[in-house]
């Protein structure tokens, strides 16, 4: 399977914290990436449509907001994808840390 695209990962990450609408997702992504990932409207909604098409997120209507603002929720499948990705990144991070430390230690 293809690697998860970074902005897809961030969107899933944002939704893992709770249901959000588009703008809130974009803001959370910006915070989580230390401002390095910024989702512009067409990219964000294009990604949301794509994730929705894969069944990783679903649309719900937000009781607090007006009708036209759609909220998104992580599906069980989506949560699984996120968990797998987190696991993969964690492994990578461990390897990376070990290698960096080995080099600096040997020097």
């Amino acid at each position, binding site marked *: 399977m293809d690697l998860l695209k970074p902005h897809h990962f961030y969107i899933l990450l944002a939704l893992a914290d709770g249901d959000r609408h*588009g703008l809130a997702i974009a803001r959370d992504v910006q915070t989580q990436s230390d401002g390095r990932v*910024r989702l*512009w*409207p*067409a990219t964000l*909604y*294009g990604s949301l*449509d794509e994730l929705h098409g894969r069944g990783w997120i679903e649309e719900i209507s937000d009781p607090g907001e007006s009708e*036209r603002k*759609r909220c998104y929720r992580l599906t069980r499948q989506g949560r699984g994808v996120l968990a797998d990705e987190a696991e993969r990144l964690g492994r990578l991070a461990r390897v990376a840390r070990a290698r960096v430390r080995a080099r600096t230690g040997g020097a």
Partner: protein
Amino acid sequence: MSRAYRFVLRLAPRELRESHGREMEEMFADALAASRRRGIAAVCATWCAAVGDVLTARRRARLHPLDTYRKGTTMGTDIRYAARALRRQRGATLLVAAMLTLGIAANVAVFALINGLFLRPFPFPAPDRLVYINTAAPKWNLDVVGINYPDFDKWRKGQRLFDAIALYDGAMFNLAEGGTPERVRGAVITYDFPRVLGIEPILGRTFTPDEDRPNAPHVVLLSSALWKSRFGGDRNVLGRTLRMDGIPYTIIGVMPPEAAFPNEALVWVPMAGDPNQKYESYSGDGIGRLEPGVTVAAADADLKRAHQPVWDAGDKEHIVTPFVRPLRDTFVHDYRAAVWTIGGAVAVLLLIACANVAAIMLARALARRHEIGIRLALGSSRLRLMRQLFLENVMLAAIGGVLGVVAGRWMLALLLSLLPDQFPRWAVFTVDTRVILFSVALVGLTTVLFGWAPALHAVRGDLRSAVNETTRGTTDSPRARRTLSLLVGAEFALAAMLLVCGALLLKAFDRLQHVDPGFRPEHVLTAVVPLSEGTRPKPEQWTAFWTEFESRLAAAPGVDAEGLITCLPLAGCHTGNFFEAEGAAPKPDGKDPVVLWREASSGYAAAVGLRLREGRFLESTDARPHAQPVVVVNETFVRTFWGAGAKGVGRRIRYRGADHAWMTVVGVTADVKHYGLERPVRPGVYLPLANDPRSALMVAIHSTGEPALVASSLRAVVRAIDPEIPLYRVRTMDEWMRLSLAPRQALAWMLAVFAALALLLAIGGAYGVSTYLVSQRTREIGIRVALGARTRDVFRGVVTRGLAVVSAGVACGLLASIPLGSAMGDVLFGVSPRDPAVLASVAAILLATAMVANGVPARRAARIDPMRALRTE
């Protein structure tokens, strides 16, 4: 802002836009608001990012078209086909576009000139109701006499069909407040002048009827230009005084810029005419505003009716007759012939370009006959094919049109910079809506002009032969070939006409340059010296000034000779008068000739090198009190009054009317071309200056020194006597001469340039068609050579065929140019439109170039290797 983003969103994939558009807008608004706090750079970056974002989404959607289905209309398909066809033959497309651009640009530029001069409305309310008023004296051979104020007063009271009528006259004023003295252009106007034009002052008020009376207090209106330059746009300028000609004027208002019409006046003062003035003085022009719905003819009749009392009172013979004509006619009259000549030239240029493009497109369409035949066979409709070919033409014309308008603006700027001061100051030349509409119409017209041939020929004709023509390189349909020849012939005919007209004009210009002006224009510096009547109110003071001026000037370094005159030749001035000659037979038609009247100082003849035919020029003793009254006349005067071959010296003349004294002719000078080298000479007189003091005169200085040095000694002389007197129109006589020739020179060279461009296009056309025909006959020529035709025969065959077409075209063009040249009439300055040298050289040029244009492809044909020609096919 959100509207702009919505526009950006239209670039986004449709599904995305439809399902999320509003949220996307909101999100963008949020980002934009955040960026605004960080300055303009951040806002720009946000916009760029947003556009980039949408474009990326669009590309992504195209790369992964999940369920998008493009619905292509047939029109869209045809447009894409046409664009592809044009792109495939890039060279030909570029060539065609360049030719169209050239043709359209020339037309756009010239149309912008025509538009500015003849079509753009004057910048006043209801400009179509404005008319020009003046008087004519047909019995005295005068088209425009000027207006006598008491007559005007009667018109103003008696007219019924005008909203208002007003008089204006040009005037010059010396402004000498602080700094260097300045001569400014102004106008004297009757109080209703602003009402006629329909303009309001931007500050203060205009003249009241009471201020427009004799002996009224001095008041002045400023132009906005003078207000800004002299008073820094100060709004407290009202009530202050402006010293002009040494007289204080109270400033009462500031006029808007459009009030400068028609003389670019900087100040206005009331005319203050006296309705009961005893003498007649005809000067100035009238302007009127018609009541709505009144025609110019009706207004003309109304004015003549109002003039009836004047005729009844003193002018029983109806010598002076008022007339009314459309305002514009008066001011653009001089340009009409020149502008239409150039307009005709560029129209012909465009026609040639179209013929060329038609030929190229036809050749291209013929080359595609096979393809088109197959498409027809497969069931494509002829209409559809024609539409596609037509679309190609429209696209080409549109490219040519857009580039043409852009290039046309450059060409216009170039034309205007090459012709400075040639156009009236009120005329505005821009590419406005009318010019754009004209260009669009032009593009439509060119499409039809060059599109008909290819569209018809390609689709016509029978299907089977087109498909059967499996072997390319055979001769194509004779009908198409005839059309190609016709186009080339027509190009050469048109080019011949343009070349003949251009050559005739150049020849006329050359002839004009060699006309004897009647004096020596070299090494003569001239200037106008105006005295301020405020500081020197008495005529004796003027005489004293001129005496001192002349004596100082004659002693100035570098001055060989100097003289004063009321009106220099070629300077555009004229004072007419009527004389009686003793012993002259009365004119058979009862029309007295207008005599050019001048007063000169004794040094004038030497200063400009006047040539004496008889007797002597004026001498300073002639002006002494109780001296015998004398006059110097020109040859035309002697011929007109006493007949050819008569002697002038010793005869007597006087101003018309028995109460004037006789003056003895003491000298006869050669005719001076006073009104321009191409204008007829009037009878003329020179009278001693000192008898009739003047407050402004023109000075002529002969000096072999540098004109700039002479000018500075002249300035020093004037400054030494009175530092408040300005000098203006400081020019050499050569410059006056050049200025008088400039319009004709410009016309001749413009026509010559357009003719050269036409020639270039025609050569290109002939070369292209000949090359195409040879390429189509490769196989045939190969067979001929194989059967024993010699190289020379092949070469001659091709060239003969090309030259036959061109010769026919040139012959037609030369024949057509003769009536065209006759229509140019006076412009040709006596050069015959049948001038054999011009006709022969044009024919020679065209045939020689056609020889080259056909010779190159003919050489190529002659070198065809029969084996290869037959094998490759």
